[in-house]
């Protein structure tokens, strides 16, 4: 496994980004959301890009983690850093449990199954308001503490950039490890992989667990960074948006999801006047990407570079 210079440069650039938006709170907030999107997109890419399953229940797992985090904090009077691993583990186990039966399916049927699970959980968020406060959502979530000081603004963005970089590095190691190669073998031909002694079921469960971890950790940081969550923050559209980051940037590559999230996540904030058109714009992008550029931007770039050689 060789480590390329441009990869290192990309990570350093990501780490340095918060320093550029230190002065401006608005830009800083956009950056924070974008870094979270980078983390989420990298996570979804492990299942969508490497294993070849499209999990539309991604946002639901984030939501479960976020609500569990707030519940644990309020119920057991523990702080964010103690509740984070608990909520993450809880949501990931729920995610694996929910995904377990659907893991045997593939392609369209898996996606449909995950869409059903996502819809069910969104409905459950709305109709069981004991934990979630229903459609109104929970606001004024207190930020995590560090040495007795609440983490806000610039420091939080630094933490998020470290989180994003950790996520990318982890995905890179998975991609280059034997595990990642098994994932790709399953994506290419699951019958052949099975006949070579790779347990399709077990590896898919592992992938599902890793992806749920990404979703859940992202959900916990999202809740405390934004300070407000509602069932709408974790609905089908959020899952589709994260999928769009992956597909737009380029699935099954490390750089693709990062590029996709960096380009698309800030758009709705930067084009405030276009806010009403946000859904339409992302819908049009989804259609166009699927029809015309299945490999995404980075995939198209790689194809162009290979054709020049």
């Amino acid at each position, binding site marked *: 496994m060789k480590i390329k210079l441009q990869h290192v440069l990309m990570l350093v650039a990501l780490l340095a980004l918060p320093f550029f938006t230190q002065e401006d709170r608005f830009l800083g907030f956009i950056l924070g959301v974008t870094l979270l999107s980078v983390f989420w997109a990298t996570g979804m890419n492990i299942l969508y890009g490497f294993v070849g399953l*499209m999990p539309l229940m991604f946002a639901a797992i984030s939501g479960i983690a976020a609500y569990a985090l707030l519940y644990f904090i309020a119920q057991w009077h523990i702080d964010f850093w103690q509740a984070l691993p608990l909520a993450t583990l809880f949501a990931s186990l729920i995610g694996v449990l929910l995904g377990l039966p659907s893991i*045997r399916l593939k*392609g*369209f*049927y898996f996606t449909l199954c995950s869409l*059903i699970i996502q819809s069910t959980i969104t409905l459950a968020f709305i109709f069981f308001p004991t934990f979630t406060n229903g459609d109104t959502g929970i606001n004024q979530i207190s930020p995590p503490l560090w040495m007795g000081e609440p983490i806000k603004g610039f420091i939080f963005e630094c933490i998020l950039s470290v989180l994003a970089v950790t996520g990318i590095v982890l995905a890179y190691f998975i991609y280059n490890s034997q595990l990642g190669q098994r994932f790709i073998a399953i994506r290419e031909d699951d019958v052949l992989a099975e006949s070579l002694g790779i347990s399709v079921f077990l590896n898919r469960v592992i992938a599902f667990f890793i992806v749920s971890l990404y979703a859940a950790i992202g959900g916990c940081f999202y809740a405390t960074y934004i300070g407000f969550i509602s069932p709408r923050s974790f609905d089908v559209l959020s899952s589709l948006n994260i999928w769009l980051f992956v597909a737009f940037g380029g699935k099954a590559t490390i750089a693709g999801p990062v590029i996709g999230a960096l380009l698309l996540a800030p758009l709705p904030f930067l084009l405030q006047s276009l806010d009403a*058109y946000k859904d339409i714009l992302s*819908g049009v992008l989804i*259609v166009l990407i699927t029809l015309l550029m299945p490999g995404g931007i980075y995939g198209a770039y790689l194809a162009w570079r290979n054709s020049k050689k």
Partner: protein
Amino acid sequence: MDALLLLIASTVSTGLLLGAIFALVAAGVTIVYGCIWLPNASNGQFFVLSGLVAWGLTSSYGFNSFTACLIVLAASILLSLVFESLLFRRLYNVPDRNISYFVITLGLTQVMSGVFSMTFSKWSDQFSLPPLIQGVTMIGPFPMTNNRILVLAIAYTSLAILFLLLRYHPIGRAIRAVFQNREAALLRGVNVHSIYKISFVLGSTIIYLGGLLYALAYSFDLSIAWTMSITAFAIMIVGGPGSVLGALVIGLIFGFTQAIVSNFTSPTVATFSYLFAMLLILLIKPNGLFLK
């Protein structure tokens, strides 16, 4: 005692009507899926679109319901042809196209719901069409509006026509041949791509018709779109993707479920039960109840 009888009668009539509309929409979805492998996730938006346009024609331009519905149906055929030639034709020869189609129609759902919330939801939040005919008929001791009886009749006639078309007409037989085996149909001289086009137009038109009938019988808001999408998918999966008979039977069952459940609690409980039924079938018998 009388109140109970009345409740049962209203449940039965609602169940019959909802069941027929569900069956129509699900038949539209399942024909398109069985033929082209196109799981139309935006069927709920199509469903709402026809009702909304007919509402606009009747309320703003003074058309009566009958003319408005005819105009919408004619326009819907054109719209389906446009969708087919712009979007769906491009992927006809891709082997794993159902997932791409699913994603495309999810994107289309997002576009259409965005457009609706920018236009129609600014003009009104409840939509309904004026009745086709006036008056009330007594069926035994139970009053029923003539309009609803007519809607019921149109719904079941359309279902019967659809069934006969698929069973006996050469085009219907060609569509069923493509369901069963594309290559064999091709070898027997069926023009598969034109059958794809016909089945997409046919399926979409049935969905639009379902939307019109729903708008004639009930008033609706925009949230019905997503519920309808989920319901139609649930019916298709439980009945068996590509099985029109399955769509009819399961559609009726789901319609009655919704009518019965609505007497006691919120219709959302019915949606929950559809989701669970779909999940169970996907996990236990992915081919559905009506396919071998």
